[in-house]
């Protein structure tokens, strides 16, 4: 349980949000030209990092907007929150 600073609504309880998995996975530009390996990589393979991870979240029980988050998955500390389309603020 932790607090999330929604870039649109401010600080709310994590239970108001839905996690959307790893961020910055780019949808293939030419899906018809992808090999099976490339599809598997896009659809299923995840970094699943222990440490600093970039991920997507949705404020489902609030503004219902998607945004990005940088979080340390080893202790659930949130490092930064930024809007969709913005560059990650920390490395």
């Amino acid at each position, binding site marked *: 349980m932790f607090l999330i600073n929604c870039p649109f609504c401010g600080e709310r309880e994590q239970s108001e949000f839905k996690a959307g998995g790893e961020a910055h996975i780019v949808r293939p530009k030419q899906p018809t030209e992808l090999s099976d390996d490339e599809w598997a990589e896009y*659809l299923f393979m*995840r970094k699943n990092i222990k440490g600093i991870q970039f*991920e997507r979240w949705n404020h489902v029980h609030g503004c219902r907007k998607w945004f990005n988050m940088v979080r340390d998955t080893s202790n659930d500390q949130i490092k930064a929150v930024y809007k969709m389309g913005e560059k990650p603020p920390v490395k």
Partner: protein
Amino acid sequence: MKNKYSIFSLIKNAFSYHENWEKAWKDPEPKKEYDAIIVGGGGHGLATAYYLAKKHNMKNIAVVEKGWIGGGNTGRNTTIIRSNYLWDASAGLYDHALKIWEGLSQELNYNVMFSQRGVMNLAHNLQDVRDLKRRTHANRLNGIDAVYLNTEEVKKFCPIINTSQDIRYPVLGGTLQRRAGTARHDAVAWGYARGADEMGVDIIQNCEVKGIKRNGDAVEGIETTKGFIKTKKIGVVAAGHSSVIANMAGLKLPLESKPLQALVSEPVKPIIDTVVMSNAVHAYVSQSDKGELVIGAGTDDYVSYSQKGSHDIVEGTLNAILELYPIFSRMRMLRQWGGIVDICPDASPIISKTSIKGLYFNCGWGTGGFKATPGSGDLFAHTIANDEPHKLNAAFNINRFVSGDLVDEHGAAAVAH
């Protein structure tokens, strides 16, 4: 040869106030080289080592564990054992394990307290009823015992369930697998450790893997906190940390690691003599031999390695428990904890070779790995020893995420993942 545990050894040791029991396993320093190394000293890893030594005659092997054996998910799960899975591949895998459970205490000479008290899965809506009936038929075609119960039969089998049709999610029926049940989770790890140790397996605790050394497309050994250990075969059984180990070898796995919570109540007199699971409201409960209610909650939806979970997950589970069992309304909960489970997109495990020679993974068990411990160890040992999967785990290869031939148990198994 270790001393056999028996009523006579118990009496004999009573005379010396139980102070002279032989150590169940040694605490060796790692050798320079092994024929195979198992990474992860939980139930699955220790079982793998045990069957490698016993069935495949590989005695020069080691299990390395970063903490203490059985201290991870083996000691954190809710100990439920069943094999009533929908798909043929899963049914084969889990029933293989269940059959080994049935003789495990005798085989290991270690009481794993396997108790076939039955597992009942409840239906709360029409779709549940249809799904559970379908699964019952599928189970019986696969030779797995399963019966469908109507509401009255559910009430008769477990009288404390609230079967009033006026509650929010009324009980419309359920399935029962009588061969299913529970076992003592720690004992499984200890029993396999003792058995493996007796055959010469080195069980090395407090030894964390820091890197995997590769020579081209083959493995050469592991870097650990106790130094470099050479080996040609590495079997990784690291549960929630599988991706961490995979990253060391430059591999990516289709896994997400999430906290799964469980909790136990204060101990009370026997009140529930079976295991009841409910998929729709996500609550399951059984009673330990100590008298505690053992309650399984759900997973959080975000990746985390923190071994903590969100409070609202526990709250949701307890709401469901209270509606189904009003008798527990004044029970107090003693402990709550989380374990990190590695979940595959199809909620089925991976027991497989990889693209790197000599590197094998047994992972992705998600929320339900404990029940498979003996079968998982047996099949993973076969895969490592022969460099080929056994026919029972052939479907659980890592390549299924490329071919698309998934074992899609998501929601089709007896409980939500």
